[in-house]
């Protein structure tokens, strides 16, 4: 047991070194100050107000498939890639067969 317990990680060896345990029957009464921000930086920069992609997941899937279908016609040299890529929409195809919830 000794080998498992012990050698506890330490960020700052001073932490808790002067802790005076309180009477266990008296719970700690330390309460922090309540924070009421009045500054303007509670609002992030405009580009960091995040929203979700507007396009529905199903529509996105259709568009993606349409693009994939179109691609081989453009250039033969790209043939390898679409074929390779063709594999993973399949997983989502089966997924889209399940009724949307």
């Amino acid at each position, binding site marked *: 047991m000794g080998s498992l317990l012990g050698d506890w990680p*330490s960020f*700052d060896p001073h*932490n*808790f070194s002067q802790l005076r345990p309180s009477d266990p029957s008296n719970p*700690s*009464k330390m*309460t922090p100050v309540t*924070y009421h921000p009045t500054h303007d930086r509670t609002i992030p920069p405009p580009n960091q107000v*995040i929203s*979700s992609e507007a396009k529905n997941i199903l529509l996105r899937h259709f568009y993606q498939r349409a693009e994939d279908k179109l691609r081989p016609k453009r250039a033969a040299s790209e043939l390898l890639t679409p074929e390779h890529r063709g594999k993973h929409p399949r997983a989502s195809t089966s997924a889209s067969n399940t009724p949307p919830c």
Partner: protein
Amino acid sequence: MSIWNYVVTAHKPTNVTHSCVGNFTGPQELNLIIAKCTRIEIHLLTPQGLQPMLDVPIYGRIATLELFRPHGEAQDLLFIATERYKFCVLQWDPEAAEVITRAMGDVSDRIGRPTDNGQIGIIDPDCRLIGLHLYDGLFKVIPFDNKGQLKEAFNIRLEELQVLDIKFLYGCPRPTIIVLYQDNKDARHVKTYEVALKDKDFVEGPWSQNNLDNGADLLIPVPPPLCGVLIIGEETIVYCSASAFKAIPIRPSITRAYGRVDADGSRYLLGDHAGLLHLLVITHEKEKVTGLKIELLGETSIASTISYLDNAFVYVGSSYGDSQLIKLNLHPDAKGSYVEVLERYVNLGPIVDFCVVDLERQGQGQVVTCSGAYKDGSLRIVRNGIGINEQASVELQGIKGMWSLRAATDDPYDTFLVVSFISETRILAMNLEDELEETEIEGFCSQVQTLFCHDAMYNQLVQVTSSSVRLISSTSRELQNEWNAPSGYSINVATANATQVLLATGGGHLVYLEIGDGILTEVKHAQLEYEVSCLDMNPIGENPNYSQLAAVGMWTDISVRLFSIPDMNLVTKENLGGEIIPRSVLLCSFEGISYLLCALGDGHLLNFLLNMSTGDLAIAKEGELTIGTIDDIQKLHIRSIPLGEHARRICHQEQTRTFAICSLKYNQSNSEEAEMHFIRLLDDQTFDFISTYPLDQYEYGCSILSCSFSDDFNVYYCVGTAYVMPEENEPSKGRILVFLVEDQKLQLIAEKETKGAVYSLNAFNGKLLAAINQKIQLYKWMLRDDGTHELQSECGHHGHILALYVQTRGDFIVVGDLMKSISLLIYKHEEGAIEERARDYNANWMSAVEILDDDIYLGAENNFNLFTVRKNSDGATDEERGRLEVVGEYHLGEFINRFRHGSLVMRLLDSDVGQIPTVIFGTVNGVIGVIASLPNEQYLFFEKLQSNLRKVIKGVGGLSHEQWRSFYNEKKTVDAKNFLDGDLIESFLDLGRIRMEEISKAMGASVEELMKRVEELTRLH
């Protein structure tokens, strides 16, 4: 009319739901951050222990709390997601000491079925994305760009519909999640997926594992170099990675929380449902996992979260009991436990029931709660008043004054306590054993009364007696120098700071001395026209050791005066009026604003604003001086009565001075009869169990009531029960038990079998009204020929899904239904029948109801909303009269289990607030709150104040207060109406002067008036 309601928190949430540790407030500072549902608390780890820094209200119920560090950041950021689909990324600005918002957003989808197993929010260990599982079948991704900025979120289809847990795996070239799920045959598996950010899709991951422990519920990702994942089941723990699979059996238990100990992920603390703490160790040779080991460390509160802090100290956050700071010892104690509990943090949650009583019969309500769950169940007595912890005491009579002094100027703590009596002065000190013992300082004059004492520069102490000022070395303890009052004059009052002494002798002589190293110098003398009653020279200027200002209170003309120091010129004089002399003056500053406080002999405290900006000091003539009486310091004081079992209902009986509770005890050792249910009788002073009535097997106590019946003087406890059979969906059998307390014992007087669970019992017109499954049933108390009594069914009312909560007023009955909101019934005496009068046609799932007045009823429901409905007696048609009109709606964000009329504070009927009716509520998170029905004029005033405060006090993380308080359920979201947020309104008092003035301008009312009106409201709780 009780339409206009004010909701305020008397006791904040204490249920700890999340915790994490990291460098949030600075690169070198280690913080513990804990979430208590709607608040986060930031603590700093220090040599003295956990130091609370900030309590941050969040306008949402926290679903996820994670610290993370994007590349290039020196300190951690805090990610918070709320149950209403908002999220924010917070950062600490150490210079301004402010929490700022790095990013925020809305991650809700318009369609989607919210997950049954709660929301999951996770951050990729390499900070490439944030993953959220909020709706079945969807995994939402918020990607980071390479600068650590967040980008537009998108959904990925997740095939697994019954997801139990999702975590990111460490050490993967592409972000990879592991999903623990249950299939439609109830078997559990894990599966990995790579997140292809560009394609916005999943790619099959490197490995999966089928057919795990049926109770597998928790994933723990293991950091490098080992990587992989731990899958925690109820009977086995498995380590799994692409290349390894190791399993160990465990004693059957449900793991509720885990905390990683080592950065390399080789040790974990696991907390289970019974409060047992285990250490799980991954044994490995270099980077190859060789096995798992698990060791029992000891017992804690039942943990909801565990955070390893530093140097073997661990924080255990609990939802069911008090949270704890524990230490892991190398060697077991006498009971074999390696766990030492060093600190306890009160948690009242879950408050399942409570009652309001006046145990001390002082006219002040106390709340006695059924708190905690399982082995951590307890009763808590909550009352207003200050709690002082007695550290040491000595018996001394006739104390005239007391001062604390330091042994050296630089000491962090005071050492000496100087106690002055009418004809002597004694000195006490804490010795090494922390005991208070008498000591001696040779340089002190101990045969006379001391008028004043203070620490002085150069390791010196100052003692002022009626005849002299003595300067004493605190190291040698010897007298250094003495200033004697002129003969024939005695010193009446004196004050001092580290470098200055000011004293007044009879005849209105004011003398100013300065303290040097071993020397006292008389600098200035002034002659005033009257006697001096009090003095102060507390430095509030830039120099903390030297004051340029002295305050002097006067007899005869009843004035306070300010003198400049050292020249002793009169700066200003303020006549106080009246005949009460100033007894004490104090120069002080709060939040950078300087005040002169002046206490009068009759207990009044006057405060003056000081204008120190111009260099000349003057009492600012801004507005009238404010006169107020000081309220007693009000703070909730909580006493715990641990029960070791779960109390679920409580009731007080004044006549017998007892409480009765329904409780259940979990028997861990014996799996056959795992639960036992009791009715227990407790003394209302000692809280000892004095009598117990065990219920039958499978029989639960559901309701309890103290009441009396028509034509019977006895007061009874009535208990409603249900037989909860494993094979039944709803109980089909229950009992009503009627007990009399005789010789401190529960005597069963009558019993009546029912056709379902007795969810509620009420005294009603000298009869007993019970809510039994779908039915409301009225029982008469009948005398039989043999002189015994029995309950006899009189009439009833069908038509509820489950009638869970019932309140009555006169002949009216208000029923809170499981899912059909509130309905109003009436008892018709002549016909002996109960009929429905009106109902609210909304589909609210109720958790508590209360009657505010004849026409207004209050309800709480399971989406954490409050609402009020009004009886429409004047409606033109039957249809209108049959409809309860919704008049108030509000999102409280707390699950209320009980409302009770009453008050936590002494209500003085002659004051304005004494007239305001209040209802107390108790919640799952341990909140005790007050709902006060305000007069319309007050409501309108505070509504305006609230809307002005919204503009000044910003929501942390950019979250909107207006949105937070809007009534919200699956069907609708509407603005709050006819409820005010007292927590926001009362935070006006915490604002700085400038912000207060801003609001004062917008309100067209003076700051003083606003403060006065808000302070009045604070006296409601």
